[in-house]
């Protein structure tokens, strides 16, 4: 009985590895991604449409913030994405580092500009949300400051990879940097949070409460829909960038040279 169970186990693991190996091969993934992109793009459009409808028409204005609460439906999902994409980047980097998988390395590189743009959006919308609330275009509150530092982490990652000519070294150095970043992000977050409560005069703490309103259920729907929409969007653009990365990285192979022949 033990042997039978063991063999079935090995067979299942082998099948899993074969499956992963097939999908992780750049050539196969190129085609796979190409087929997937139109569907994801369509899904993104639908979700964005629904989210915008919910956010701009269905959701009621807030008691305190009025119509400006609608900015939250962009700002919060963008901030969530900025963190999520960084996790994907670091995870892909780790996989690439540990298992030496080219596709994982390419994923990390492709994630960076997307994540940085979401971080930028979070900062811009944070500023636009803050101006009517706090009266200034910028405020050093905990969340915006953390986002700013995250933005610098993204830029650092991209700058490091840009400075290294050798693709392998660039991928591995970037992965290590991203892992160091991931470990530091909770520490940075905690420190900034703490710093913010320390320096806040009483009036600002009231403002901070405005910044994080108790989420009314009617506000939750557009928030979540936009979050999912952004996530599917991220997947779409990631696959697009991955295809370009694959072409670049595999440029010496026959299948790519055949592909590009006019």
């Amino acid at each position, binding site marked *: 009985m033990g042997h039978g169970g063991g063999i079935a186990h090995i067979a299942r693991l082998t099948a899993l590895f074969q499956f992963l190996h097939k999908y992780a091969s750049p050539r196969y993934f190129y085609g796979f991604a190409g087929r997937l992109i139109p569907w994801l793009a369509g899904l993104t459009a639908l979700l964005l449409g629904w989210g915008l409808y919910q956010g701009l028409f269905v959701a009621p204005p807030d008691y305190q913030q009025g119509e400006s609460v609608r900015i939250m439906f962009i700002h919060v999902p963008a901030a969530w994405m900025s963190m999520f994409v960084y996790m994907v980047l670091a995870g892909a980097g780790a996989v690439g580092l540990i298992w030496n998988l080219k596709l994982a390395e390419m994923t990390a590189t492709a994630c960076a500009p997307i994540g940085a743009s979401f971080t930028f959006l979070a900062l811009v919308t944070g500023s636009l949300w803050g101006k009517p609330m706090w009266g200034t275009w910028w405020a050093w509150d905990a969340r915006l400051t953390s986002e700013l530092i995250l933005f610098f982490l993204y830029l650092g990652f991209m700058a490091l990879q840009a400075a290294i000519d050798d693709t*392998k070294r660039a991928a591995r150095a970037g992965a290590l940097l991203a892992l160091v970043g991931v470990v530091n992000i909770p520490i940075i977050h*905690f420190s900034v949070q703490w*710093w913010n409560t320390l320096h806040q005069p009483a009036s600002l703490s009231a403002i901070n409460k405005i910044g994080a309103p108790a989420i009314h259920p009617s506000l939750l729907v557009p928030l979540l829909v936009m979050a999912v929409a952004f996530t599917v969007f991220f997947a779409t653009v990631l696959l697009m960038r991955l295809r370009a990365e694959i072409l670049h990285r595999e440029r010496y192979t026959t299948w790519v040279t055949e592909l590009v022949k006019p």
Partner: protein
Amino acid sequence: MSGSLTGAFLCVLRRDLLLAARKPADVATPLVFFAIVASLFPLGVSPEPAILRTLAPGVLWVAALLATMLSLNRLFAADHADGTLELLALSPQPLAALAAAKTLAHWLTTGLPLVLLSPLLATQLYLPQEAFGALLLGLLLGTPVLSLIGAVGAALTLGLRGGGVLLSLLVLPLYTPILIFGAGAVTAAAAGLDPEAYLSLLGAFLAVALGFAPWATAAALRISLD
């Protein structure tokens, strides 16, 4: 030549200290930079004691941060140029230990002098006497962390063009927690409060960095050298 781990550690440490002693300019320059940056603030903001007193904790810490960062280049640059670094990587001793030795040498020749100079600059910035202890202890705990984290950055950017500035971009965001608690300790002490919590956190950062950074530095060195 001792074949033991401690032997190798001390050997690398002694070598780096000797090399630093032969180039006093390398040690002095970050110190002078520290002093200059601290004096830029009265010039750029105001010489009024009341204003400088509030700025002092932050200014001293930011200046220490920048001075440490500028000196990080020389941590591995010379050894990389003449091939010593590759020999160290090939050694049977764990590279993390050797990296830790180099980092310690770096701190002894950069961070520690900053700590010793800080009271003088603090006086120039009208920092209250009560805060001096927190400043010294904070810098004593914090500057090694700066060297440890900086070493990872220096190893990642080994031999790259635009090295110094790139290194700063990578490492400064990671320095922010140390800055927050280091300056926070001094500010609290200046206000008559107990800086113990801040200093304990700095101590915790140091413990974590000691366990984590040399290993990450070794990994980064191997990535850069391969």
